[in-house]
């Protein structure tokens, strides 16, 4: 018997229809059972009732006056009328007030066509206004922040945006300013509205007051062709709708009923769409000539050359001279074709890992999103999910809203707004887990030793009856699929470290890189990767853009991005999610799957029939129940973060923390012209006293040095929240790639110059 059976049901009548709903249901929700449309503006199922707009008036028998359906709980025997003379009169009165000073600029409003105010004014609005005076005028097109434009005249002050910012994100920057007829939406601080979830307010806004800069004046909603798909910008796997018009993506919108995202999107997932149509996309295969330039070649030629190099390598040096890296950004079907084609040739040096992350599977305690939001203790270890899996972080905030504590472990402070404690080590968790009954661990999958400590703790908690759930927030969106579907080294074959080492030793003849950019992300660092690629006979790279890595390849194949192909991916909770093509890919590009199928045909190797791939992929995930932090995933060269801290000469140096950022990367964000304002610039963040000790001032340009490796021209930022004795830099920035540095190692500060001097030097 499930607990559901115990829910007491209440009988009531809505418009003559008998309705039976659980006790405590709000009338506005109960009415949905009889498909009655009660108009709402301020009410939203995820935000709860606010009782502000007053449009949801209904007539309840025996009540002295009209009641708002959004804050009325059903009671036994209640008789409700949602239409009729009395109700209509009330709603017409509210509608008259709503429209009184509304500009009615629907013809130039982006919301026109999907606007609740427009829709309900058809039902309850008068054809002429009784207002004999000019409408009150308010500021229009206010730049609210890097993503949003606000029109105060259109705003009906339903407070959905400010309530979202308070209830759901807990960031509390949006407020209602002033009062009465003068009230406007603004940030409390007066600073621009910055949030990684800002785009959600444009969807919550029932009118055209809040609009996305990326979508303003781009399209009418009815001109958009919509496709339901899955976001592949991170490992969460939020469902979203892609709107396309005249072959260009106009916008993406969330799916309110989605079980994965809970109806929200982060700004990376929502706004990072302009790269699809960027002119810098590669649209033809490119071959490097002996003199070093790229020449365009045809697809048949390209696949033949790839196949020939593979065949020749097998013939001359055996399959051990071949390796492939990739899969974390591919679809399940593509990963399978890749792994099967390579293995059919006898290739075993296959790895999906092209960055810091080592492990993607959460182990035996792998949890669901419901486990996460019902936990009473959430522990995030390593990089904060707020930057690596933003919408997952909203789940954590939801858990905290429900009473959970949120503890972060490691050298990265989280900007989740709900952190109760921050600890240095997993071993410090002992006191925190004592009273918890449902513990969720979210790990970044990077430091296997730290993961193993967490696994040990999880195991001991589970042994004494505590409910444990584990999650890995990955660097690459489908890392879990890649790890499960054959792109992990097996039986002693080389991982990506081993592959690049073999390449540098001149042992590799063909290296295929599929949707990876090790030059920017691999911890061996750019110079080692460059060396490895240069010493390999033939390097193939499938890419959207000429990234740092693609520029070095011998053959670059123009790939397709997520909205341009169909298939499936795994989310970090192990669900298989459908990806559907919703955008016409540029001519000349091919999905990795199509390239690989052509390659397999050219090589004459047998792979599974394409229509069986999905079933095969979905069955494979059960085989990955490896423990959280399994040592087999550890880097051979890895030192644990606990020992790294003590290395080096700390007297002249600081520890470097290499932070994740939702808008870093060298691919889709870097080649998105509309995201310039959101992309982080290379910075070095210090705590106030650390900066004082080092003689660094805000705005100074600094370099960081460790041996031969340098990070040049970082702008110093000084904050009160940064940890002491640490300099934080952002990972994955093409202008200052930090991948050569190990998280936690000691670096020296060099060449500190004031912004003024730097400017003068630049001018000279």
């Amino acid at each position, binding site marked *: 018997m499930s607990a559901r059976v115990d829910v007491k049901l209440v009988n009531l009548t809505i418009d003559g229809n008998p309705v039976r709903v659980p006790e405590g249901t709000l009338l506005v929700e109960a009415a949905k059972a009889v498909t009655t449309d009660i108009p709402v503006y301020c009410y939203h199922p995820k935000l709860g009732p606010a*009782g*502000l707009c*007053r449009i949801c008036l209904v007539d309840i028998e025996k009540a002295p006056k009209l009641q708002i359906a959004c804050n009325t709980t059903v009671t036994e025997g209640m008789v409700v009328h949602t239409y009729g003379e009395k109700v209509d009169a009330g709603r017409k009165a509210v509608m*008259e007030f709503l429209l009184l000073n509304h500009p009615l600029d629907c013809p130039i409003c982006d919301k026109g066509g999907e606007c609740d105010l427009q829709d309900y004014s058809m039902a309850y609005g008068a054809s002429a206004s009784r207002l004999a*005076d000019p409408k009150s005028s308010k500021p229009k097109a206010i730049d609210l922040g890097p993503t949003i434009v606000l029109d105060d005249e259109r705003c009906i002050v339903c407070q959905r945006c400010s309530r979202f910012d308070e209830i759901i994100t807990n960031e509390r920057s949006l407020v209602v300013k002033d009062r009465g007829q003068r009230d406007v939406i603004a940030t409390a601080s007066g600073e621009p509205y910055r949030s990684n979830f800002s785009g959600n307010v444009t969807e919550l806004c029932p009118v055209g007051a809040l609009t996305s800069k990326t979508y303003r004046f781009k399209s009418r909603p009815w001109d958009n062709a919509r496709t339901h798909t899955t976001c592949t910008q991170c490992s969460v796997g939020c469902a979203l709708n892609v709107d396309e018009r005249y072959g260009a993506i106009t916008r993406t919108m969330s799916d309110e009923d989605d079980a994965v995202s809970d109806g929200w999107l982060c700004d990376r997932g929502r706004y990072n769409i302009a790269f699809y149509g960027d002119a810098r996309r590669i649209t033809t295969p490119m071959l490097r000539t002996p003199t070093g330039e790229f020449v365009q070649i045809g697809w048949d030629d390209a696949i033949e050359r790839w196949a020939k190099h593979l065949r020749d390598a097998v013939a001359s040096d055996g399959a051990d001279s071949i390796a492939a890296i990739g899969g974390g950004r591919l679809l399940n079907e593509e990963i399978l074709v890749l792994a099967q084609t390579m293995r059919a040739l006898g290739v075993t040096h296959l790895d999906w890992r092209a960055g810091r992350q080592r492990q993607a599977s959460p182990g035996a305690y792998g949890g669901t999103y419901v486990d996460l939001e019902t936990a009473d203790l959430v522990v995030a270890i390593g990089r904060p999910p707020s930057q690596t899996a933003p919408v997952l972080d909203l789940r954590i905030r939801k858990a905290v809203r429900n009473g959970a504590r949120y503890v972060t472990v490691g050298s990265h402070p989280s900007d989740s707004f709900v952190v109760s404690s921050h600890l240095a080590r997993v071993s410090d968790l002992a006191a925190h887990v004592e009273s918890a009954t449902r513990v969720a661990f979210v790990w970044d999958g990077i430091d296997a030793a730290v993961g193993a400590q967490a696994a040990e703790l999880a195991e001991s908690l589970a042994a004494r009856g505590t409910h444990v759930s584990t999650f890995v927030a990955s660097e690459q969106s489908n890392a879990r699929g890649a790890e499960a579907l054959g792109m992990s080294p097996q039986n002693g074959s080389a991982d990506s470290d081993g592959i690049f080492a073999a390449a540098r030793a001149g042992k590799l003849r063909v290296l295929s890189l599929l949707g990876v950019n090790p030059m920017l992300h691999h911890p061996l660092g750019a110079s080692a990767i460059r060396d490895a690629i240069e010493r390999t006979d033939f390097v193939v790279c499938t890419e959207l853009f000429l990234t740092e890595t693609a520029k070095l390849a011998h053959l670059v194949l123009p790939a397709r991005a997520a909205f341009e192909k169909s298939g499936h991916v795994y989310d970090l909770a192990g669900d298989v999610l459908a990806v559907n093509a919703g955008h016409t890919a540029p001519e000349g590009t091919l999905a990795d799957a199509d390239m690989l199928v052509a390659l397999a045909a050219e090589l004459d190797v047998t792979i599974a029939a394409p229509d069986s791939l999905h079933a095969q992929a979905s069955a494979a995930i059960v085989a990955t129940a490896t423990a959280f932090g399994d040592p087999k995933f550890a880097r051979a060269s890895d030192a644990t973060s606990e020992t790294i801290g003590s290395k080096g000469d700390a007297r002249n140096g600081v520890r470097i923390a290499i932070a994740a950022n939702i808008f870093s990367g060298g691919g889709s964000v870097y080649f998105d012209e509309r995201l310039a304002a959101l992309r982080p610039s290379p910075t070095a963040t210090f705590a106030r006293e650390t900066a004082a000790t080092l003689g660094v001032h805000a705005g100074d340009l600094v370099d960081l040095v460790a041996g031969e490796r340098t990070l040049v021209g970082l702008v110093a930022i000084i904050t009160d929240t940064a940890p002491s004795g640490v300099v934080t830099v952002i990972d994955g920035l093409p202008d200052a790639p930090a991948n050569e540095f190990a998280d936690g190692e000691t670096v020296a500060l060099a060449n500190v110059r004031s912004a003024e001097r730097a400017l003068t030097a630049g001018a000279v």
Partner: protein
Amino acid sequence: MPETKVLTAGIGEANLRDLAIYRERGGYEQWRRAVAEMTPAQIQDVTMKSGLRGRGGAGFPTGRKWSFLPKNDRPRYMVCNCDEAEPGTFKDHMLLEETPHQVLEGILIGTYAIGSHHAFVYIRGEFRKGYEIFMQAVADARAAGFIGENIFGTDYCVDVTVHRGAGAYICGEETALINSIEGRRGEPRLKPPFPAIKGLYNEPTVVNNVETLATLPHILKNGPEWFTAVGTEKSPGYKIVSVSGHVKKPGNYEVPLGTPISELLAIAGGPRDGRTIVAVQPGGGSSACLFQEHLDLGYDFDTMAANGTMLGSGAVVFFDDTTNFVEAALALVQFYAHESCGQCTPCREGGHWLEVTLQRILDGGGMHSDIDMLVSVSHQMTGLNLCPLGDSIEPFLASVVKRFEAQFRAYVRTPERVAVPA
């Protein structure tokens, strides 16, 4: 019946701000009795029997309000509402400045009676002087051992926190006041849940008016029968009435409830020489006007309600035959439009609409249809809002438009003109 000084006794004669003087007159004796000799239930019982009704505006029986608190061990709070801002009301202001210890004693008794250990006093931001006087009173009472740990040798502990408002009428509404104390925007909360269940910091909370609480020591001292012996059956006791407008001696006068309005007029010195009172607003800015024919009505909660208006906070404003009711209406509508928090659509938009319309009528641009519109819009915005502020415009406006329609119509110069928006 003449003026009867109970809460106002000693004001203007002795320096009641001085703790020693207040104590010489029996001050804090009831607080000692309450804690040392009575149980909270006994005080609740006495209050219930006294029939004391809230003096802040709604007139809800205080004992019943307390009885809504859940019977549990959660922390609970007493909040004293001293955000007096109803147009025409200035009694709490006086009590705070002149008899701060009497107010504090009442607050402490109320706090003890509801089983709370923490009282919050929300003082209107503009009451700077009253705030300073009250803070001194709290400090003196604390030094004398009336606030703090183990009061009068018992194990009862109590603390008092004083919070200043920042100038918003709406913060007199109890849930807006609670939001304001919590540091949130001062706007009313959606009810249910009511403060008795989920109030300040989400705990059970009672919000009582200054005058209501200041009455408690007197009821404890004299017994509930003393209180019910005066006033009417359903409106027992004494009430401080703030009389203002066209009278010779405006001021606060304490009278038994049920005293005829004409007597209030007489106590306040009567109308100005040669003038006739044509209207009286009996319960603050939110109440409907009464007229000459109503002057003999008894001033109590039920008589006022039966005549379509209310006693409210006890602010009586007299209007004589020199009054321009269009200007008077604009003054009040401007106030409510300015003070609307803007949460609810009808209140936010309706008040502003009426304001600009009245201004245009006064400026000579009115149409006959505007006058009908004033009545219809003020009615239309009533009963649709989350709190009573939006319902506060109709009573006065509709009553004076009906009574003095000619004054409004006289402003219309071009009856048939059709207004064209600028």
